[in-house]
Structure formats: structure tokens, C-alpha cells
């Protein structure tokens, strides 16, 4: 059978949900960042799919390109920050960062 827009969107949605859950559950900072990547890519899938099936056209693909680039940049910064966190806490367990609260 021929895949149509809805099935792509479904995949995108699945990726999105997985990413969110990953973010919300992982204790390891790296894991959390991967969750972020999943979310972004879920969006990317949507963009590409829309660019094929709707009036969005080429713009969708441009969108996804930009997103990929930005994702890379963000990941770099995020990893740097995680490293910084590691230097101070000697762990990448996000739950250890609980000094700031209240």
C-alpha cells in the first residue's frame, strides 16, 4: 500500500512523543539531549512530508535544513554546558543538580 501524508505525520508524532518522554525521564544529561534531538527530528519529518504533499513546497525542506544546522549548534553548546556541569559535579546525572530550588 502507498504511504500518504497521515502516515508520515504519524511517524513524526511518534518521534516527538518519544523525544519528550525521553527528555522527561532520562537521568543522564546526554540522554536528555538525545531526547531533544528526537523532538527536533520529529518536526523535521513533518516539514519534509508537508513539503511533498501540501502547498508548503520547497519551504518545508528549507525549514528542515535550517533546523538540522541549528540542532547541531545547539547540541554543541549543550554538550559544552554538560561538560561544565560535569566539571563541577563530577557527574552528568541531572538529578544531582538540585541546589537551586524553592
Amino acid at each position, binding site marked *: 500500500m502507498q504511504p500518504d501524508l497521515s502516515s508520515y505525520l504519524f511517524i513524526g508524532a511518534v518521534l516527538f512523543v518519544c523525544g519528550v518522554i525521553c527528555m522527561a525521564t532520562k537521568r543522564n544529561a546526554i540522554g536528555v*539531549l538525545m531526547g531533544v534531538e528526537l523532538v527536533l527530528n520529529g518536526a523535521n519529518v513533518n516539514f519534509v512530508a508537508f513539503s511533498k504533499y501540501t502547498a508548503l513546497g520547497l*519551504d518545508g525542506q528549507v525549514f528542515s535544513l535550517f533546523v538540522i544546522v541549528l540542532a547541531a*549548534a545547539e547540541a554543541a553548546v549543550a554538550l559544552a554546558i554538560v561538560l561544565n*556541569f560535569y566539571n*563541577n559535579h563530577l557527574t552528568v546525572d541531572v538529578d544531582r543538580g538540585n541546589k537551586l530550588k524553592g
Partner: protein
Amino acid sequence: MFSELLNNLINNTLDKGLDYFSAELWLSGTIVVMLLMRLFSIDRLVPTFIVGLIGAAAAGWCSFGQFADLIAANDPVSVSFFGGMLRQDLFSVFFRIFLSLFLILTIALTVLTGIPDNEDAPDFYTLLFGATIGMMLMASANNLLMLFLGVEMASVPSYVMVGFLKGRKASSEASLKYVVYGAGAAGVMLYGISLVAGILGTGDMTLLADRIRVVAEGGTAGLGDPEVRTVALGVMLVMVGLAFKLSLVPFHFWCPDAFEGASAEVAGFLSVASKAGAFALLVRFCVGLSGVPETANLMTAFGVGLGVIAIITTTYGNLAAYTQNNLKRLLAYSTIAHAGYMLMAVAAMLVMLNSDQAAGLGKAINYSIGGLLYYLAVYMFMNLGAFAVIALVRNYTFNEDIDSFKGLISQSPALCITMLVCVFSLIGIPPFGGFFAKLMIFASVYQAAQIHWAMYVVLAAGAVNTIFSLFYYVRILKAMFLEERPANVKSVPLPAMEGYYVVVLAVMVALLGFLPQLVNGLSSIANEAGNAVLLVIGG
């Protein structure tokens, strides 16, 4: 096709685009210069902040030139450039000026407080400028793509700046939380963008409302229609992303932690600038979605929803601030509360913009946006003033708790008077700017209430919150003026320059309250800008 795109790009880039983009270009240029300085270690000879100040001033000058042109051509214009990615009108220019001015003030503050030290200065200022550019993009974004880019570009450097105090556990923790939270929010927003852009088949924000009408196939856009429902979901996800930048409840969690972890200067910068950009973006987005009868119901509902969010945010912020002892954290909550106040203006705008007598309300709608802009302008001074005082006191007492402010009046009146003015202005007591700003917001909410009763609730909530806020603001004053200076707290001998700096801020806050030319000029400009952003609806 590609060539056509290229021609198109070159044409409007060369004849006007670059001109419109000059402020951002100046900032980018400054960044390059600073990096090069670092490379060739010129920064040993010339302090980096001088370059920074020059760059910021230049950017401000350019945007002022644009401003002058726009005022001179006394029929308000709103043109898109860079292939419809950005939009040039009084609104974006207003924010360019605002941001460059604020950039200058922040740099000055960092210079006075000596954070960062000469080592890190180039990196720090690079990040600062980058974030500023991002905010300027947010202010002038005309396309969902630019919306996302702007937000990211503003956020990513901020993550780093929050974590800039190296070797501080709190700082690194704060930045980690900020980055993860921000990334998550950005992801959600992006997903929303994908839905909106995909279903409506365009990224151009000015077309959104029209496309929704098309999607709704004549009928009024309701959630019965699955596509409209999806769009609504997308819109909401986008707003979640913006809500994160605005630290609206329940997307505010990063704010207190990040502010407490970050240095006071950075906190001040984030509390004002990123909010300014985000509000600009929110306004543009909402305007894009409005103005078509079919979407009226939906958007009014969104407006009321924003109003409710505003109530929750304000109340939460004011109540939570009451028990804080760390002043940065306390001000973080107050920032949340004030975001709520400003959001009231946006809600009012949405409600009025989508009412059936919107035509008659043109002025009122302008004023609601104008009120928001005025509030931001005053907020810039009063909040920066407060953070500046904290930073300066911290430099001597190495402590940001409220106890370190006890009896400060006996040692450095200038700081106390500034804090006094800022706090009274934050409460909204005349004759300080905060009062007038708050008045404008309440006024527009009142007018919106003529259209939708729910706005009366918002108005009442605003009034009640003014009283709640009293409690924790007065705690600060009480500590500074009414209590004795404890013996163990280090003294605060205030050098002249720093004194002048804060006093200037205080004076600005005061003048924005009652100096006729200033109040009048600024408010009328703000209203003009509000008018400008609405132009897209007609065309």
C-alpha cells in the same frame, strides 16, 4: 527557479534590505572584530568593552536613522524584505533602538561591576551581542522560520551566559537546566511550527489568518474541523515556546533557578531583553492570526486564554516572591509577575482586535500595544536598576541575600534611593514610570472588558496583584531603610561612577513618570509602533 530566487534576493537585498538590516550587521561586525581581537590578543591593549560600546552605539545610531526616516515619512509603512523573512516597520525599529540602548546600558554595568574580567570579556560580549541580534530578529520576524531562528539565536548564547561564572556549581547547574528546558521548549515550538506551516502551506505570518479561512472552507473556523483543530494545536505549541521565553506559568520553572545561578548582570539582561524580543514576537504572531472574521471566535478565545494565563502568572509570581531571601531569585519571581502584567495587554489586544467593532477600536488597540511597549521601556530602566544595585552590593558584600541589604541607607544612600525609586515604580506608585505603564495596560484591559466580560476578571486580578506585590517589595525597603545595619555585614563604600550610573537609571524611571515631553513622546511613539504592527492586517 533558483536563479529567480537569487535575483529576487539580490534585488531587494541591495536596494533596501541591507539598509534595513544595518543594525544587526553592525552587531555582527562587532562580534567579528571582538573575535579577531581575541585572536591577535589586541584585547590586552584596548579593552574589549570599548569596541562593544562603539558597536552597540553604531547599531543604535543606524536604527535611530531608520526611525527618523519612518517618522519623517508620516504615513506609516510596513515592508517585508529578505524574501518576506523579515519585516521593517516602526515596531521593529522601536525594538532595535530599545535593544541597542539596553545593550549599551548592560555593557556599562558589566564594566562597572567588573564581570566578566578582562580574560573572558571578548567571549562574554560576543555572546551578549549574539543574543541581542537574535532578539532583534525576533522583533522583526515575518516568517515562522525566522521566528524559530530568532528564538534559538537569542536562547543559545543566553544558555552560555547563564553558565558563565565558571567553577560555580550553582551557575553550571542553572545553565544546564536552562539549556535542557529551553531546548525542550524549542522542540515543542518547532513541532507546532511544522503543523501550522504544513497545514496552512505557508511560513509567512501575515498570511496565516487568511489561510485559516481557506482551510475552514467558508465556515467559521471551529475545532470541529480536524485541520483547524490541528492548526490550533500547532498555534498553541508555538505559544508554549514563546511562553517559555516569557517565563509564563507553567513554563516558568527555569526562570528562578537560572536567575539565581547567573550573575546579576546576566539576569538583568535576560529579564528585560529576552522578554522584550519574545513579546514582540508574540504580538506579531497574534496579529498574523487575527483580523479575519472567520478566525474571530477562535482568536478571542485565545485572547481570553492568554488573559487567564496572565492572571495565573501574575498571582503566582507575586505570591512566590514573598518568601524569597535571595534577591535575584525574588526579582526573578517579580519578573514572572510583570510578564503577567504585560501579557494582559496582549490579551486585551487580541480580544479587541477580533471583536466585531474592531474598526471603531483602532485607537484602543494601538494603545494596548503602545502600553505594552511603554511598559517594556520603563521596565528596562527599573528592573536593570534593581539588578544593578544588587550587583554593586554583591561586589562588596559577596552576598545577594536580603540580609546584606539591612540598614544600607546608613552607608550608601544613592543605592537605596535608586532601589526605592525602582521598587515604587515596580509596585506602580506615581509619580514613577511604572505607574503610568501599569495605568496604560489597565486602561486597555478595561476597554477590552467592554467587549468580553472575562477581561473584568483580568482587571480585578491585576488590581489585587498590585496589592500582593506590595508585601515583598516592601520587605526590601523595610530591610534597607527601617532596619539597623548588622555588624557582621561588610560595608558598602560606593565609588562615584557606580553611584552616577544607578542614579541615572533612577532619574530615568522617575522622569518617565511625569516629565511631559518624555512620557508624552514615548507613549505616542509606542502607539505609532502599535499602529505599524497592525498594518499587515489591512494589506
